[in-house]
């Protein structure tokens, strides 16, 4: 695990105070990152994000799930999307020796839960503009479950953001085979999967959020913190933003408190930055990936 000495902490704190961070960025600068989609051919959708040294790989695998009749009343009304999108995050020991063995257990759960909360109301019937939930095959009986598995290959801070961006890109890349449900004689349902590899459904990611993490160091906060900056953070606020600049989730981390004024300021900043990233991301994704 990377360590930091008290004098380095003061150096970074003063830098944040002066609005020059150790890599020359100001407080609200984002690092350059690269995005690759469709890396894993066996998955329905995949994406890889490289944010400086942080590297995450996300794969989406779809499976048909049957709703048991007794679950029906509950599931249909509340549309429990947490069961339709199953997240799991795994931090590789290659990212940091501290992830070896059971070392990454807590972080895996934290990151996974964070993504789950972020996507809690996506692909929800009411949210899904106009048409029926595209994840359902036979309404109320069969639906697609998306298993979203993320691997953290290398870590240089800001894992939350990288994961959320990668997940969103992977969902954009996801292609579901067109399935036709045929009702048999005895009410049983058989599926007919289209043979044509081009004949697929894609998901709309219009509502899919990304998160922006703001790290409070000293009296100021920064976005897109590096690993060293994360070591001297006081508190952290992760805000989920979608392209309508709606807030989808907020989570606070770190040991110290945040006062309401700072929280407001943070949320406003994250809105600006989040929509900016989403705009560029959508534009580039549409241009480059078919």
């Amino acid at each position, binding site marked *: 695990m990377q*360590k*930091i*000495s*008290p*004098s*380095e902490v*003061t*150096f970074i704190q*003063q*830098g944040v105070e*002066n*609005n*020059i*961070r*150790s*890599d*020359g*960025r*100001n*407080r*609200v*600068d*984002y*690092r*350059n*990152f*690269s*995005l*690759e*989609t*469709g*890396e894993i051919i066996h998955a329905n959708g995949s994406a890889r994000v490289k944010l*400086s040294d942080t590297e995450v790989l996300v794969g989406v695998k779809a499976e048909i799930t049957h709703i048991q009749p007794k679950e029906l009343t509950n599931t249909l009304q509340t549309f429990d999307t947490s069961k339709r999108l199953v997240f799991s995050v795994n931090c590789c020991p290659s990212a940091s020796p501290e992830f070896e063995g059971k070392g990454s257990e807590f972080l895996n759960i934290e990151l996974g839960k964070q993504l789950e909360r972020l996507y809690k109301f996506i692909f929800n019937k009411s949210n899904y503009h106009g048409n029926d939930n595209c994840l359902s095959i036979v309404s109320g009986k069969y639906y697609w479950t998306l298993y979203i598995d993320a691997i953290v290959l290398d870590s240089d801070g800001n894992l939350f953001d990288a994961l959320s961006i990668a997940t969103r890109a992977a969902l954009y890349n996801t292609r579901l085979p067109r399935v036709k449900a045929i009702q048999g004689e005895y009410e049983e349902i058989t599926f007919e999967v289209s043979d044509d590899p081009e004949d697929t459904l894609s998901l709309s990611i219009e509502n899919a959020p990304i998160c922006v993490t703001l790290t409070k160091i000293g009296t100021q*906060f920064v976005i897109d913190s590096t690993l*060293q900056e994360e070591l001297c953070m006081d508190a952290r606020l992760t805000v989920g933003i979608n392209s309508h600049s709606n807030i989808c989730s907020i989570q606070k981390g770190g040991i110290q408190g945040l006062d309401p004024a700072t929280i407001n*300021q943070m949320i*406003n*900043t994250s809105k*600006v*930055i989040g929509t*900016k*990233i989403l705009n*560029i*991301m959508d534009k*580039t*994704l549409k*241009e*480059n*990936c*078919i």
Partner: protein
Amino acid sequence: MESNDNNLTNINIEIFSPQKRMKLKHYQQQHTQVKAEDNDIIMESEESELFSSKRLVIPGQIISREGEYLKGHGTFHNGSNLIASVCGTLDKVDRLISVKALKSRYHGEVGDIIVGRITEISSKRWKVDVNSRLDYILMLSAINLPGGIQRRRTSADELQMRNFFVENDLVYAEVQMIMGDGSVAIHTRNQKYGKLQNGHFMKVTPSLIKRSKQHFYSLECGVDVILGLNGYIWIADTEQQKNQSAFIQKHEKENFDQACIIPDDIKQISKDSRDRISRVKNSIALLEKGFLLIHSKSIMQVYHLSNKMKLGAKDLLHPQYIKQILTLLSTEYNDDIKDEE
């Protein structure tokens, strides 16, 4: 709101899609066979030339036929061939062939100047992380006592070891000796060695730093750089460090048995020097990305280039500029070599 007024236009996203990716050229099976044999022939006929200039090998490359040489580190036998298992340079001692990996952990030699981080305090010694396979040892007797007094270390010193170095502190030290069991002792018995404070720490691949007479540079742009041979690099402001060491010396003269706490006004670094520090830091990061040797000359080359191109310090890490600067550097490097010849 101040933070919103800053320009946020610089979010740069590079997108790759599989269609756009370059396809790796695969040689056909026949082709490789021919190539391998070519290698063998080179090995036999131009042997002297092969070892006089350090040649790079890649994993799986055939070095020689079995029996001709003994296998050392980084090689293995497969069938009747001796094959490299890591990417690196060929090393030959008599009949023993080994491959020294380009990216590996640091392996200390006596006299190396290194930067390390204290990980543990035990009786009469500190354990220091130096990016090696095991932590190096800094003995209490191997440090300079404050004020430069020469005396035996007493048990009182032993009790206040945390006054000198605590866990996570950075130290600038020299390798003293390598013990029989493989552990390594380092020392800081010189005015210039000791604790490093108020600067930036970064890490690069150890093989990028060349052994030279000097590892501490006060660059002409007012930035101090310590290039530890273990790949740990320390960057600080010259002016601030000067004030700081003057303060520490004064403090040690007056009351040497107390821990030195540096006041805030000495810790201050101006915005301009911070910009220079980050520019130097990013120059080093850029050199590492290009796998180029890191020394004062190459750092300053990148530094001046970036100034000439009117780039901000953070722009040095923009993928486009990295490419641009590295191509410029490679041509300049070649010119330099020609000039020297």
